[in-house]
């Protein structure tokens, strides 16, 4: 089972790097366009290797993001668990799509993710701009193909049975 252990290493490394990327300082002008790295990486694993990540992983990553972001505890966790649930639930249908249809699904998931965050902010009575809220969806859609190609290729290297 050496290969599966290496896949697990890749999983852990990709998740930790996503968390780090989520808080790396960016210039103010581009900060709103920071993609939702953690959500993207978790969607990738939810679609491609749903047997490896559970909802609890998504929950833990969401809580870590909440703590790092100073957000309401559980805000990112709820959004993350919802998105990962959908991607795991429908992974068999979604991942046989051609790449552009796959990307459309991912954009839909990102929209849902941002909407949940936005909605919770609204309920909690925090002031947030509405237009800039959707910037991460755009940038997320742009970086998704690279995440897909990169992680899939690294993973293929480690897996003999693909």
């Amino acid at each position, binding site marked *: 089972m050496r290969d599966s252990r290496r896949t697990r290493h890749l999983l852990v490394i990709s998740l930790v790097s996503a968390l780090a990327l989520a*808080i790396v*300082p960016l210039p103010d002008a581009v900060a709103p366009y920071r993609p939702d790295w953690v959500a993207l990486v978790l969607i990738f694993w939810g679609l491609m290797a749903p047997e490896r990540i*559970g909802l609890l992983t998504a*929950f833990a990553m*969401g809580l870590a993001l*909440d703590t790092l972001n100073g957000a309401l505890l*559980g805000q990112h*966790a709820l959004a993350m*668990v919802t998105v990962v649930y959908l991607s795991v639930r429908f992974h068999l249908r979604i991942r046989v799509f051609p790449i552009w249809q796959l990307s459309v699904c991912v954009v839909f998931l990102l929209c849902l993710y941002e909407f949940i965050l936005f909605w919770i902010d609204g309920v909690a009575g925090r*002031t947030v701009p509405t237009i800039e809220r959707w910037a991460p969806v755009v940038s997320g859609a742009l970086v998704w193909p690279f995440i897909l190609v990169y992680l899939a290729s690294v993973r293929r290297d480690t897996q003999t049975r693909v």
Partner: protein
Amino acid sequence: MNAVGGNGGNLGRGNVPLGLRFLLIAIVSGSLMLLDHREEHLSRIRQAFSVIVYPIQAAVDLPFSGWRLASRALTDQSALLEENERLKSDRLRVDVRLQRLAALEAENDRLRAMLDSSARVNDRVLGVQILAVDLDPYRQRFTIDRGLNDGVYVGQALLDANGVVGQIVRVELFTSEAVLISDADHAIPVSVNRNGLRTIVVGTGDSTRLRLPYLTNSADIEKGDLLVSSGLGGVFPSGYPVGRVLEVLRRPGQAFAEVIAEPAAQLDRDREVLLVWTAEDEVEGRTSASVAEAP
């Protein structure tokens, strides 16, 4: 892509179906948010989480603080000499002003003693670093490298060399989260230095603009007025500059004037800020031993 072998719909752990597990976790997150929104119920849990994720924060900050260290080590001698000269002349100027200040302070204390009011005590300050990590981009917040271990407390004021920066909103073990005075949800009581008019300065979400929404059209305020913290509300120490009035728009049809101010502190450029322990806190003994005395 290969199909997932074996256990198709029900992926995994135990016998609980995926949908039910999702529902349970969603309910847990919902109740966490409810508890956290009502403040303070979860501060212990948050502190535990923050210790777990601290290595990530430290790792992200490392290249930036490393770069600062390296550039300090690699500065050439001529630049250092030049800086030294500049600092010496700066210091001379400041010293001259300080001489007058000492006399004024003594006079102030005498007058206060005559009026039977309490003497002012020097506030104590501690220089802290802002960590190079980003928080929510829609709110004006940042993280500093001191926490519970250093005696930081919620509501503590932060200053820089030019004025008030913000206040602490959450304290973890090694780090604390602060909010800038320009955050859209932040307000600070101030008085106009020229005539003592008291009002409140509200943030706009833009780190170069502040708003004074509670001044009537007839209020005595002008462009260029210095706004200093009034100390009312008990969070910020009194007498530190908050901002300077940029423009005053008086609309005859409306009850309130539209007043815009510019923050005195360099909110978007600071890397180092000062934590303040005000004199009242000293009495309550909330400080730690590691605090430096203000000059």
